[in-house]
């Protein structure tokens, strides 16, 4: 270690400014740190696989004559309509991939700061609690929107390009809004879900396990309770079922469970509300033990 003051201290001659987006450095750093994690890049790249498959589906649907030998009797699978987009955004596989992206890339967003006591350095800066939380949430927004909204919109554009006409757009002018709306709902829910669990423990491994297990076990619980009570109401216990229920509503499709969609919205909103409450109480410059 070099001697103290070897180079001397200089005053900084610049001027500190009030940023319009004080949360942005937090987001940028969160994204960069996630990409440094082992295996994350590979997983994140893998999260685009469903988009590639669905893109291929759109291409094939426009070239049915060429691919007839491949899609014998399966034409309905590549019937491009709002249900196709809903399937892309709310199928079990993509939801699972999103959870895995959150597990590997976002579990430590708050828990690492709690573990290493860095909240007090954050809040010794001209930073408000909402700036900090927005910065952390935006990391989740980035990862989820990039595998939902961006591919969703691109699939729509490619459908028009491959079709060579605007007929699809004229048939479903609201579909873009549905893609945007559902992507935002999904992103907002996952942001609150991730930050809630991340703020509950200083151990990132526990948070990773929680993120994964709560998602999986909520679905298993639904299966068990449905088996016992034989009522679709039990779907409300499952995160996945609620998200798929909302997706069906947003894309004007038949609801997968015979439960009013309002209840699913309420369950997701309750998780977000609980998260906001916990975050409000737990995120502060100093841990106050009363």
């Amino acid at each position, binding site marked *: 270690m070099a001697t103290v*003051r070897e180079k001397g201290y200089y*005053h900084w001659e*610049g001027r*500190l400014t009030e940023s319009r987006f004080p949360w942005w450095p937090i987001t940028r*750093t969160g994204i960069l740190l996630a990409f440094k*994690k082992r295996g994350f890049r590979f997983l994140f790249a893998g999260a685009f696989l469903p988009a590639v498959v669905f893109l291929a589906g759109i291409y094939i649907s426009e070239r049915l004559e060429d691919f007839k030998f491949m899609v014998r009797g399966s034409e309905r699978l590549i019937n491009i309509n709002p249900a196709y987009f809903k399937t892309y955004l709310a199928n079990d596989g993509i939801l699972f991939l999103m959870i895995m992206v959150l597990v590997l890339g976002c579990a430590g967003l708050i828990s690492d700061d709690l573990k290493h006591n860095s909240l*007090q350095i954050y*809040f010794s800066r*001209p930073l408000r609690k909402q700036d900090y939380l927005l910065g952390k949430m935006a990391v989740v927004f980035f990862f989820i929107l990039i595998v939902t909204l961006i591919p969703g919109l691109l699939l729509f554009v490619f459908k028009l390009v491959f079709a060579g006409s605007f007929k699809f757009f004229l048939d479903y002018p609201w579909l873009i809004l549905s893609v945007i709306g559902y992507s935002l709902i999904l992103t907002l829910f996952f942001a609150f879900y991730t930050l809630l669990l991340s703020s509950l423990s200083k151990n990132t491994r526990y948070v990773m396990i929680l993120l994964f297990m709560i998602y999986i076990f909520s679905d298993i619980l639904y299966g068990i309770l449905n088996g016992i009570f034989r009522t679709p109401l039990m779907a409300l216990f499952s995160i996945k079922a609620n998200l798929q229920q909302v997706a069906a509503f947003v894309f004007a499709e038949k609801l997968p469970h015979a439960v009013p969609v309002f209840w699913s919205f309420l369950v997701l909103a309750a998780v977000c509300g609980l998260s906001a409450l916990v975050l409000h109480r737990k995120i502060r410059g100093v841990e106050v033990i009363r």
Partner: protein
Amino acid sequence: MSIEVKKLSFSYGKVKALDDVSLGLGDGAVGLLGPNGAGKSTLLRILLGFLVPASGEGTVLGYDIRRDQAKIRRLVGYMPEDDCFIAGMDAVTFTSYFGELSGMPREEAMKRAHEVLFYVGLEEARYRLLDTYSAGMKQRLKMAQALVHDPKLLFLDEPTANLDPQGRNEVLELIADIASHKDIRVLLSSHILADIETLCSSVVILNKGRLAAEGRLEDLKATDVSLYELKIKGDGEAFRKDLEALKCRVEETEDKVIKVYMPADRNRMEIFRAAARTGVQIRFFTKSQTSLEDLFAELVGVD
């Protein structure tokens, strides 16, 4: 005045951490002294806006501690007591990151991060992962992040805690340099009296959430007690009781030296008379200087 507070109170539930504290701190290095639980860290946290006082008011560098927290934080550098870092980052990224969060442009923050890391002696380790830093390096890193935005006032909370003697000397040297030459006012909170005595020209002593003393170190050390050190042979207990009856405070060190704090208006001959009365021989006697330790012991009532 860099810091001024009036009738500041704060409680953690039923425990009063600060009780009606009023003080004004000027330029240079000021020591914030007190035993554990005295309210030192609570005061710093209130000044930074981490905690909202139950009552009272205050200003830091002229800004109100309740209303102008963002302005205060822009001008203040804070080095917390606990280890703080972000896993997976190197020192340059960490320091520039907090510079940016303070309001520096990104490129400037990066340039400045290199400068302050050189200044605190971490230049060779600045690209190493923080997870691999030793306790001393983490302490320097905390100093670097506190200095990166060139604050006008530096809050240092137990800056030499958990350091080996060499690391402690190096950090003290840094603080002394900052406080004496760099136009940065320093508020140093510590329970290590020697650190405060080395670095600070004035001191605030808190005890059980109350202000016990405040002022220039020289003035406070010139207390209205005289300190005598003596060694005796004979019944020490009777001698002690006799001295205590004369309003003296008596302490015995590990090497059997008896320290007698005698009110300044009393004559030292009374010590000899007490010895004669109790049949004690005084084998060694000298008048000693009161130290910060003595002042602290007298005000706080602990050794």
